[in-house]
């Protein structure tokens, strides 16, 4: 594998707090998902990769060159930040064009590239609208547009799907997959497994500032499936529901929440559980008010890996 990004024992701390702890990994062409819960250190790692922060320890290189204060690297890199911040007075097209000018393109090229980037993220119709008036999803897409407009070889996308509606989300996932297939190196972060799964099978699992696992997402999926899932159910008759649910072979524990008419159970086979549940509740006329999964399952895998 051609190594584009390489981290060797990289740590970053803010005062007494360690955000990234001695991580070593390498990333090549294609899409790599940086997966971890909120506060895992994903954003810090992204900032180190994009040269916004300097490693406290260790070595982080892109194409074999150090990143901090190495501005020529930004000809080859695009970054979509997590934070929802813009020059709000600008229109979408002005924003992308202004940032393209900083790459030294001619005015004709700036205009061509702006059009192309806006087309790629489906924002052509809103190009002359002020960013301040954009919806959250549109703002995410304009961030993506400025990241890809100069056609970089490496794209670093920090939670790019946050706030997008399902259609935009699907389009963006497709777009990211295409970029990966074109041979670009795309590093994309998320705390939601299925988002990452939809984009790539290659992941980097990070928790408490450490890389816990690196490789194929299916291995992680297997781990998750082996691990009991928490399912929270609020219904009209939680005790009766519990009596019925305890008979399911995959249910390993049930906990009541009398104050909220609810229960939390652990299932070893959530897919099967979800397929059986509606029929059971219908047959016994138990009204379902809410069903959620309190953990995103990743948390369980993190616990498993840490233990």
């Amino acid at each position, binding site marked *: 594998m051609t190594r584009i990004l390489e981290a060797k024992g990289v740590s970053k701390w*803010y005062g007494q707090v360690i955000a990234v702890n001695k991580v070593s990994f390498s990333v090549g062409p294609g899409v790599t998902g940086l997966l971890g819960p909120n506060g895992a250190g994903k*954003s810090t790692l992204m900032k180190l990769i*994009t*040269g*916004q*922060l*300097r490693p406290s320890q260790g070595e982080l290189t892109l194409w074999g060159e150090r990143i901090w*204060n190495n*501005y*020529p*690297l*930004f*000809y080859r*890199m*695009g*970054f979509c*930040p*997590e*934070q929802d*911040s*813009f*020059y709000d*007075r*600008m229109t979408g097209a002005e924003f992308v064009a*202004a*940032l393209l*000018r*900083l*790459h*030294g393109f001619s005015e004709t090229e700036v205009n061509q590239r702006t059009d192309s980037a806006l087309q790629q993220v489906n924002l052509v119709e809103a190009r002359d609208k002020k960013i301040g008036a954009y919806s959250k999803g549109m703002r995410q897409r304009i961030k993506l547009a*400025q990241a890809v407009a100069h056609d970089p070889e490496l794209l670093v996308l920090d939670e790019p799907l946050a706030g997008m509606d399902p259609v935009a989300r699907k389009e963006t996932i497709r777009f990211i997959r295409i970029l990966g297939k074109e041979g670009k190196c795309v590093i994309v972060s998320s705390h939601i497994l299925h988002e990452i799964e939809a984009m790539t099978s290659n992941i980097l699992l990070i928790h408490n500032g450490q890389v816990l696992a690196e490789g194929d997402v299916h291995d992680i999926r297997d781990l998750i499936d082996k691990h009991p899932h928490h399912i929270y159910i609020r219904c009209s008759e939680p005790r009766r529901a519990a009596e019925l649910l305890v008979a399911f072979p995959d249910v390993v524990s049930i906990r009541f929440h009398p104050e909220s008419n609810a229960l939390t159970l652990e299932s070893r086979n959530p897919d099967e559980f979800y397929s059986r549940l509606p029929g059971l509740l219908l047959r016994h006329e138990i009204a379902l008010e809410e069903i959620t999964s309190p953990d995103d399952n990743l948390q369980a895998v993190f616990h498993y890996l840490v233990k």
Partner: protein
Amino acid sequence: MTGRFRIAKGWRDMKTIAYLTLDTLFWSKKTIFVVFISLVVLGMAVLGRLVLSYNWIRAPFTPAQVFSTLMSTAVIHFMVVFVTLFYGTALISEEVEGKTLTYLFLRPIPKPAIMVGKYLALVWTSVLLVLPTVVFSYLILYLRDDLRPFWEDAGVLGKDIGIVFLALLAYGAFFSLLGAWLKHPILAGLIYAFGWEGIVSYLPGFTRKLTVTHYIQSIFPHENAPASLAMLFGERTQAPEAVSTLLLMTALFLAAACLVLREKEYVLEQ
């Protein structure tokens, strides 16, 4: 990359950053405040003109005296300081606060070029807002049937414009440094402008030479109360030395701001 190409690219980068900054600086709420200060200064000039025209005060005043007082108190020690304080400290700190600095830092531009580009925008905006106030104040006070004083003092106006420009450069560079360096630069800037500059420049001895005000007073072409008071305790610095010191201070403050921007890690809160 050849040296010539590097210079051309550096200049182009700074210009692009300056244009980008101009828009955000000029259309900020600060401009309303600066325009207000400018109107206050012009209002004072109008008041001075009325006093001169209708002899409201028995003591004989000349346009030169009123203009001198206006320049010394309202323009240089107030307007210039406030304009550069508000705009200079905002150059980087507002990008940090608004979390837009990322967009600039992740472009193939050296960080010092970002700083200098922003500083150029600050100078341009300040000049655009302050110098017309100086010129209009002069016109308000001097334009009358007898145009002799107008032409006689035109050279003084030229010097004043030059001094205001030098003051904008020096204060602008210093406040840009504070904005790049500190998280809350306005307070530090106020303490500097009205504490250090306001007090130390009137103290006897060498310390006064550590203020921008001292060098401005040294080349100020009017006799006025604050300058006379300051000069009671020490010699003026010779004009060429004062001008070159102001330019040197500007260069040093700006270089320090570039260094801070290059080396500091800006942690943008999520």
